[in-house]
């Protein structure tokens, strides 16, 4: 089933779980459990980043979450009106974040993992900061049906 849904979300960390549950349900017909996990984690990381860093943990602000189901992909957008993040942060984020020395526990990351996880879990990630709003667009392709 194709279609698009928009959710308006309070900038409150307690609502993130509700949004995750809603988006997971919207996508559940078309995606495997593993892909649903990937989408849920990416959405949670993106939404949490906006609330914690964009809005500095301030409640009373609003985020817009868009979910668009296409024939071959799902596109999830997180739109906010907070001060934008540095786009270079997203470009530099990747699996290198987890290239730590596991024998040196002091070197292990405790934070700054969200953008890397988004990049690792989604097929395309794009960030556009416009005059009044920022848009993080995350795309997950549907797994191709087996041809065998």
């Amino acid at each position: 089933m194709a279609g698009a849904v928009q959710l308006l979300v309070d900038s409150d960390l307690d609502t993130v779980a509700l949004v995750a549950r809603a988006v997971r349900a919207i996508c559940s017909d078309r995606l495997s459990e593993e892909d649903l996990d990937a989408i849920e984690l990416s959405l949670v990381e993106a939404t949490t980043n906006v609330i914690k860093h964009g809005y500095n943990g301030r409640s009373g602000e609003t985020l817009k979450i868009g979910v668009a189901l296409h024939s071959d992909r799902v596109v999830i957008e997180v739109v906010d009106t907070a001060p934008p993040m540095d786009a270079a942060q997203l470009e530099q984020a990747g699996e290198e974040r987890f290239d730590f020395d596991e024998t040196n526990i002091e070197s292990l990351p405790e934070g700054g993992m969200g953008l890397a996880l988004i990049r690792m879990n989604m097929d395309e990630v794009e960030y556009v900061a416009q005059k009044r709003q920022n848009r993080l667009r995350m795309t997950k392709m549907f797994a191709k049906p087996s041809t065998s």
Partner: protein
Amino acid sequence: MINHEVREGVLVARVEEKRVDAARAPDFKTELTRLIEDGHQQVVLDLSKVEFVDSSGLGAIVATLKRIGPRGSLAVAGATGAVERLFKLTRMDKVFPLHEDVDAAVRRMAG
């Protein structure tokens, strides 16, 4: 949020929440820290009831390991689905040995 018991000298901390995300990570970290400050160096974190962990939850677990220090260890039991996947994706399974259940983790640690 966390129940605990001591088995064969190993602290077993069972997380009773389905989600450990940014909303709950601060309390989660505080509770875990309080438990290990009693002096336990061998800890099993039972995540069998947990369905979702985000980077904040994972960061709290890493912080707990740092608090335990290099002479102790922190193993994870019962991680499945998205939780197990997060540990593997972030290579944290190299840091926190993943065990199928608490029995296996305690056996390994106490032995």
